[in-house]
Structure formats: C-alpha cells, structure tokens
C-alpha cells in the first residue's frame, strides 16, 4: 500500500490557497461592470402588500432597477420548486403551495423578499432599498407548532386547512398497539427539538451574468450542488436550457445543508442581469441569512416505549409535529419523514414501531436540512426516551442499551421502519467509548467535582444514522424528484498524470485530497499528480452534489468505478504490448504484469501508449485513456457508534460546562483519518451547540428574536473541550469502497448525550426534564422549580 492511499493522514492539498488568503469564494468574484443587488424584505410575518412605490429609490444615485413580484410574474419566472412529494395516510398528496421568487400581494414570513434593488455599488443599492415604500397590511401570524395546529389559528395557506401540509405515517400500527396492550412497562416522553440556523461562516452569495453575445447565463453561487441548481434553473425557475447555463460553485465556506437548496436569489440575479445589462451580485448579510437561509429541526414530539419488566424494548410509538415554515424548501418534506421516522429503530432491536408525522405550515423561514437532517431528531428522542426508561425501571443506562443493541451476527438487520442495516458492531463502539472516557472512574470524578461545588453528570447516546444517500429507484418510490447517484470522469493524461471531474462538491470536506488518495490507492500515482475538479457545470459532466454524508461513499464509489474502466482498458493495451492474453494480465501497485511472470508495463507506459498509439490494438481498442461512471448506491450506509459526555453544572448559576467528550464511531473504511477526525470534531461542536446554546426564537407575532450573532449563540472555542475520537471499522458491504460517511455523526449522536448528562447531574435535585438548548437560564429555572416543588 502506498503512503498516500487509504488510511494515510496526508495534509490537505487545498490548504495552501486558503492559508495564503487566495481562496476564491463567491463574493470574491467581481466581474467587469459589476452591479449589486440588495433585497427589500418583509418586516412582517404575515402581511398583504397593498402597493410598492419605487419612485424615490429609482431616482437615487447609481440605481439601475427596482424589481418586484409583478415584474417576475410578467416575465414568467418560475416559482421555487419542492423536490420531494410526500403522500399522506389517506393517500392524498401533500399541499405544495406556490413559492414565488419575489412575493406578489402577500408576504408570509419576516424576510420574505418583496423587491430587489440593483445599483452600481453595494452602498447605493443599500441606500436605495431604504427608499422603497411598501404599504403593508399586517395580519395575525403563527410561528409555533402547537399554536399553528390550535383551533382558530391564523392560516398560512387557504389550501392547507389547519396549516397541515401532510399527515404521514410509517410502520405497523396494529402490531405496535398489540405490543403496548400487553406491555409490562410503558415509558412516555414529550420533547421539542429546537429550531436551529445553519450558520456556515460564509454567508450565501450569488453573482449572475447574462452574456448577450453568446446568449448564455453564468451563475457564481455558494452551492453544495451546482448541477442540481442548474437543473432546477433550467427546468423550473429561469426556464433556460442547460447548455445556456453555467453554474459555478467556487470555494464555498461551509454548507451544513443550507447551501443544498435552490434559492430565489440565485434565479433573481440571473434574471436581473439580463434586464440591467450588468452582472448582478448579491451577498447576504448575517442578519439577512437568519431570515433567508433554510432553518433546521423544529419538532414537537410525543413518544412512548413499551418494555418488558427487565428492560427489553418491545415497541415504540411516536407522534411528531414538524415545522415546514411558510414555503416548502427543496428537500423539506423528506427530512421529518424518510430521514427521521426511518431512523427510529436506532441501533436497537425494537420488534414494532409506528410513527406519525404531521408537517405544519407556519409564518416562519422555511425549514429544511441542517447537518444531520432528521436523523438528529430521531436520535434525540430515542436516546432521551431510553434514558428515561432506564431511570424509571431502575436499570443502569449503559446496561439497558447493551441489552437491546442489535448484535453483530444479526446483520443484515431489517428494522420495522423500512431500512435494512447491512453491517455494524455496536457493542464494540460502546465498549471503546466507555474505555476512552474511563467510565469506571466516573464516581471518583463526580465526588471530586462535588468538592468544588459542581454537579457532575454522565451522558450516553448509542446511535446509528443512514447516509450515503441514496438508491435512486428507492427514493423515487418514496417521492423524490431526482436520482441520487453520483458521477465522475477520470482523465489520464499522456504523461500519466490524472484529472478527476467529480459531481461531488467540497466546501470544507477536503475532496481535493481524499479523492486524490482514492485514485492513488488504485493507480499508484502520487497525489501531487492528481487534480480534483469540482464545482463547475461547464467542466464536470454531471453531478448530484454533496449532502447527507454522501461524497466519499457515493462520489468516491463513482470515481472507483471510472478507475475500474480505465484499469480494464489499460489491460488490453498492456496485453498487446506484452504480447499476452488480456485474461493473463494483472494490475497491481501501478503495474500491469503477465500473471506468474516478471513481464510488466507501468501504468505510465500504458497511458503514454494510449495517446501515442503506434504499437496498439487499434482495431479493437480506441486511443485515449479517459472514462466516466455514474454510481447509484444499492442501499443507504449506516454509520453508528457511541457518544459519551461529561458535564459539570453550577447549581447556583445553571451554567453547564462540557468537561469531557469521548466518542467511538464506525464510519466504515477511512480514507484519511486526520480528515475523518476533523469531520467528527465539527459535528460534535455543532451538536453541542444545539444542545446547549443555539435556538432560533420566534415571538408569537413571527418576529425572529435571535436574528444575529448577538442573540443567536454560536459555540466558541472556550465553550468546548478537546474531543476524544475513536473509530472501529466495519466496512460497508454494498459499495466498492467500504466507506459509510462521517460528516454528520457528531451532530446526530451527541445532543442527547449532552442533555442526558445534564439531567444526570441534576437528578439529585429532582430535575427530570429539560428541552434543548440547556441554557443557564433554563437550567437554573428547572432547578428552582424542582426545589420549589420539593419544598
């Protein structure tokens, strides 16, 4: 094996440009005659728009245009489509209301775009936006789930009575009821999963340019999937054929889901560019991002677990309300359904499961995928419920999990909620994590904390997730509007260096390094001689992009498949050069060899011959050495593991400090351990942020109260400890790489471990319940309430 192939922690190839300040992010792209767009956004959560008076704005210095929903409608701009259709219990399709790029007549959440001002400079556009006079007629709004389903609640859409988008279910209700009817013990819990903002540190941006000579559009955009954006622009919104559209997602400063979706601004800058005859650039402010990036989570759930008296799980029943916001974002309906309810078996044997999910419209920003997307919600409710069951039944929290884990010899394991897990070893990751945190000495540490006046708690979560999304036929049957394969082209140059064109997109994941390592593993070419190209629809044949921890498992497998074809073609060329039968030629360590002999040709010699085919099997083999592959996954991949957290709570102030985090994950085969650990670290910070700090808070009028970094608390360096990260590998059985995926495990596994630890710390004070985020105020109030109740 080479020292740059699978398993090598090589430093990243892409780092240099970022470290020197030479990255090229969307806002860094300034085109000749650049103009700038600023949006006028609704300050009301629900308001009729009586009129828009743009005269003063149009007269302001530098202003090129003020465009409104009327203009968009006049030009027949398409609305933003939703890419997934859910069918309700009763067989009806979900309600999919129109989602205009610029609203006309009515705004449905604070931040809904009402007008677009374009000027020669950003400052001029900002000034002029202040001068656009919009006459609003504010109406009652509803932001919260329980309020939205109450009788007489303001209605977001006439076509969605009761604000219900869909009412869906999964699993066997009768079997579940039967288990509950005879259950020895039943444990119930009511939970919320807090609404979060994605907050990639790079705000979204889009720069659109219409070339009237070539009659062609170019869009620079902060996207995780430029081809998907091009597809939606072509088919639904701009309605211009693909060959007239180039979408470039250059360096992108983090995504976490928020940059998957096709957003109105991408369409509008292209449209506006044609109208004003300049490239048009829009860059989101952070406060604008809070009002326009899709949010995540926002569930209210009631769940019940049926158990035997000795703690064996028998059945699970879950009822969830999921907030969709005012419009359906690209993947929104899939998140609380097929990425949530299907995960409810977790790593456990649960003979019967039934889940009902009602998706609800509110006058809030659309809700869609944020790192983990549905799986954190499932894991959180299950792991909270399991902890509660352990307490009520008087069973140790580690032991109740151990007792119910799917055992290694039970794979493939069919859950009652549609998924079939291919492989895993959950007891191994449980033991590995317990050892890493030195669980046996917890009591000593607790006593030591107590001496300092701190309450120490231990929290555990054993989890699985489903990623590497996803088999196209399966997701099609479940309502997806797209396939979820990935594409790759591998071009071997005459002198033996390689360019890979991948449909995956790297916005921090390090593909320029890890994908080169994959090629190195197969062809033996040094990674310095391998370039990975991503993010430009003019250069890359096709792609579905990066989300759902799919790039290494699906995108990497596409590269493997393309390399297979190259290796096979090379065999024919080598056989000719070696005057041997193709069947006798082997490829190993970068060399073609006649089996059982020392006659060989290097890969470089074969590549050169492919382009200089003087001595060549020209009748049967074409010159050149380049091939493409589309890889469609056969199943989801199922990373899993165990996350452990220790916290110290100050009972006087309610401040929670995370003092130790130890995790053991099984993310399948690892390309670059350093990068895999880094992905886990980032996910952990994200998950701890959700558990302790982060929340999008709406008031009852639909105003977002936490709409900037002043009021929305992001995790900072001093809020976190260093992390202990371990891996136990079982290889994915159904893809050629054995990779499962790692990008989301931290955000999925750790939130319940944090809250379970806080509740463990507070148990002596009588606190039995907390919702995320466990802020000092909330913890302090819970302590006061419990103590007051006891007094």
């Amino acid at each position, binding site marked *: 094996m080479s020292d740059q192939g699978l398993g090598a922690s090589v*430093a*990243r190839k*892409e*780092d*240099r*440009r*970022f*470290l*020197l*300040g*030479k*990255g*090229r*992010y969307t*806002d*860094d792209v*300034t085109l000749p005659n650049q103009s700038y767009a600023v949006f006028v956004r609704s300050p009301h959560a629900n308001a009729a728009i009586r009129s828009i008076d743009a005269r003063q704005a149009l007269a302001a210095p530098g202003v090129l245009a003020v465009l409104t929903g009327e203009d968009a409608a006049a030009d027949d701009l398409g609305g933003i489509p939703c890419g997934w259709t859910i069918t309700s219990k009763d067989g009806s399709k979900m309600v999919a209301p129109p989602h205009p790029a610029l609203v006309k007549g009515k705004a449905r959440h604070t931040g809904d775009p009402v007008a677009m001002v374009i000027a020669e400079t*950003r*400052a001029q556009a900002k000034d002029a936006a202040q001068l656009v006079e919009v006459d609003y007629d504010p109406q009652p709004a509803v932001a919260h789930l329980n309020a939205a389903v109450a009788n007489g609640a303001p209605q977001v859409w006439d076509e969605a009575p009761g604000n219900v988008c869909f009412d869906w279910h999964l699993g066997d209700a009768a079997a579940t009821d039967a288990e509950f009817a005879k259950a020895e013990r039943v444990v119930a819990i009511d939970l919320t999963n807090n609404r979060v903002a994605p*907050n*990639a*540190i*790079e*705000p979204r941006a889009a720069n659109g340019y219409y070339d009237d000579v070539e009659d062609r559009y170019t869009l620079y955009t902060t996207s995780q999937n430029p081809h998907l954006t091009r597809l939606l622009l072509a088919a639904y919104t701009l309605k211009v054929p693909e060959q007239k559209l180039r979408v470039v997602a250059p*360096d*992108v*400063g*983090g995504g*976490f889901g928020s940059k998957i979706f096709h957003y109105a601004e991408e369409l509008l800058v292209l449209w506006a560019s044609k109208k004003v005859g300049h490239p048009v650039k829009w*860059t989101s*402010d*952070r*406060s604008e991002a809070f009002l326009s990036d899709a949010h995540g989570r926002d569930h209210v759930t009631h769940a019940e677990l049926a158990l035997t008296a000795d703690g064996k799980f028998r059945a699970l029943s879950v009822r969830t309300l999921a907030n969709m916001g005012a419009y359906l974002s690209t993947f929104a309906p899939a998140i609380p359904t097929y990425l949530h309810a299907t995960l409810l078996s977790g790593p456990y044997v649960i003979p019967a499961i039934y889940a009902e999910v009602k998706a609800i419209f509110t006058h809030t920003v659309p809700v869609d995928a944020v790192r983990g997307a549905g799986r954190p919600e499932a894991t959180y409710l299950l792991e909270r419920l399991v902890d509660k069951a352990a307490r009520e039944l008087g069973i140790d929290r580690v032991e109740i999990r151990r007792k119910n884990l799917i055992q290694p010899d039970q794979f493939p394991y069919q859950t009652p909620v549609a998924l079939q897990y291919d492989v895993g070893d959950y007891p191994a990751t449980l033991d590995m994590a317990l050892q890493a945190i030195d669980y046996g000495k917890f009591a000593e540490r607790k006593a030591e904390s107590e001496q300092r006046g701190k309450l120490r708690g231990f929290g555990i979560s054993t989890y699985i997730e489903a990623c590497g999304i996803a088999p196209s036929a399966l997701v099609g049957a479940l309502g997806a509007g797209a396939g979820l394969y990935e594409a790759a082209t591998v071009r071997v140059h005459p002198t033996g260096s390689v360019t890979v064109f991948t449909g995956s997109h790297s*916005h*921090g*994941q*390090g593909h320029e390094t890890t994908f080169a390592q994959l090629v190195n593993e197969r062809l033996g070419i040094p990674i310095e001689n391998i370039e990975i190209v991503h993010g430009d629809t003019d250069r890359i044949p096709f792609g579905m992009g990066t989300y759902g921890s799919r790039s290494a498992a699906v995108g990497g497998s596409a590269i493997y498949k393309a390399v297979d074809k190259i290796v096979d073609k090379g065999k024919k060329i080598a056989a000719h050069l070696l005057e041997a039968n193709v069947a006798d030629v082997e490829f190993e360590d970068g060399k073609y060899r006649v089996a059982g002999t020392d006659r060989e040709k290097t890969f470089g010699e074969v590549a050169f011959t492919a382009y200089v085919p003087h001595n060549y099997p020209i009748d049967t083999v074409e010159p050149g050495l380049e091939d493409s592959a589309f890889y469609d996954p056969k199943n989801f991949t199922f990373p899993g593991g165990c996350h452990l957290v220790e916290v110290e709570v100050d009972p006087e102030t309610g401040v929670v400090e995370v003092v130790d985090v130890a995790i053991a994950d099984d993310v399948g085969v690892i390309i670059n351990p*350093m*990068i895999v*650990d*880094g992905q886990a*670290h*980032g*996910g*952990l*910070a*994200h998950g701890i942020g959700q558990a302790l700090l982060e929340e999008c808070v709406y008031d009852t009028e639909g105003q977002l109260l936490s709409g*900037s*970094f*002043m009021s929305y608390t*992001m*995790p*900072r*360096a*001093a809020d*976190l400890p*260093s*992390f202990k990260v371990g891996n136990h590998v079982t290889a994915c059985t159904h893809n050629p790489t054995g990779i499962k995926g790692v990008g989301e495990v*931290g955000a999925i596994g750790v939130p319940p471990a944090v809250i379970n630890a806080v509740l463990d710390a507070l148990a002596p004070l009588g606190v039995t319940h907390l919702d995320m985020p466990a802020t000092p105020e909330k913890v302090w109030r819970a302590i006061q309430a419990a103590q007051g109740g006891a007094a």
Partner: protein
Amino acid sequence: MATISLKVNEKSHVVDVEARTLLVELLREHLRLTGTHVGCDTSQCGACTVWVDGKSVKSCAMLAVEADGAAVTTIEGLSGNGKLHPMQTAFHTCHGLQCGFCTPGMVMRATELIQRNPNPTEDEVRHGLEGNLCRCTGYHNIVKAVLTAAETVRGGAQ
C-alpha cells in the same frame, strides 16, 4: 469623500473613501485583497481580523478613515513571497482548517496571540480565540495548531 493614505502589507496606498466605508470594504473592494472575509454584521465572527499597527482588529468594526496613516497587515501579507508563516504551517499540518473561510481571521488573531503570550495553555488559547467563530472544525485542531505554532516559534527563538 476623504483621501487617506495607509500602508497595507508594506505597500503605500492613497485612496478616496466615503466617510462610512469600513476598513474591510477598503481592503476587499478597493484594494481587492479578498483574503479578509466578512462573516457577520455585528462584529462577532472575527472572519475579518487584520492587524492595524501590529494589533489584531476586526476590520468590519473600524472605518477606513480611522486607518489613515496606519500600517495594516492582512493574511496576504502575513508572511509574503508565497511562504507560510509557522502559524500557517501549523494550521496545515494540524488540519486546523476545513472550508477555509474563518481561517484568515483565525490565523491573524492566533499569530498575535502567541506573539503576546509565547507559551499559552490550551485554556488561554481557547479564550484568546473567543472573538473568532468557526463552524467547521469544532476548534479542536485550531487549538492544536496554535499550540504547535507557539512551540515552533519558541523553538526557533532559542
């Protein structure tokens, strides 16, 4: 409009700016030094961190006219001639960056931090970086990089 003169990365500039122009806008839009980033509008993220007369400053929280006469250093000028400063090298070897967006600000802040405190503890590094947000790394490897760079610089000074 005001005319200001300042040095940026050792190079002298005389520029006309509006009174409201922020230092970060001057750097990014007038001088096209796009290594300095903007991640927020409330001076909270630190992506825009540069040095003004050797002290780290959030360039979104300073007017360009306030930098009249000052010497500004941005990420592009931290080391020069395409070489990496030990802090940049440590970020590379410790995997202290993922998407790279927070990185210029982090590196500028961290470099100043170890200049002031050449032998910081992990806790001091974590508190020293409190003005800089990263969504990708969970800070784990950033902290490791800063400690590593401090060690390298200390070693070199001996």
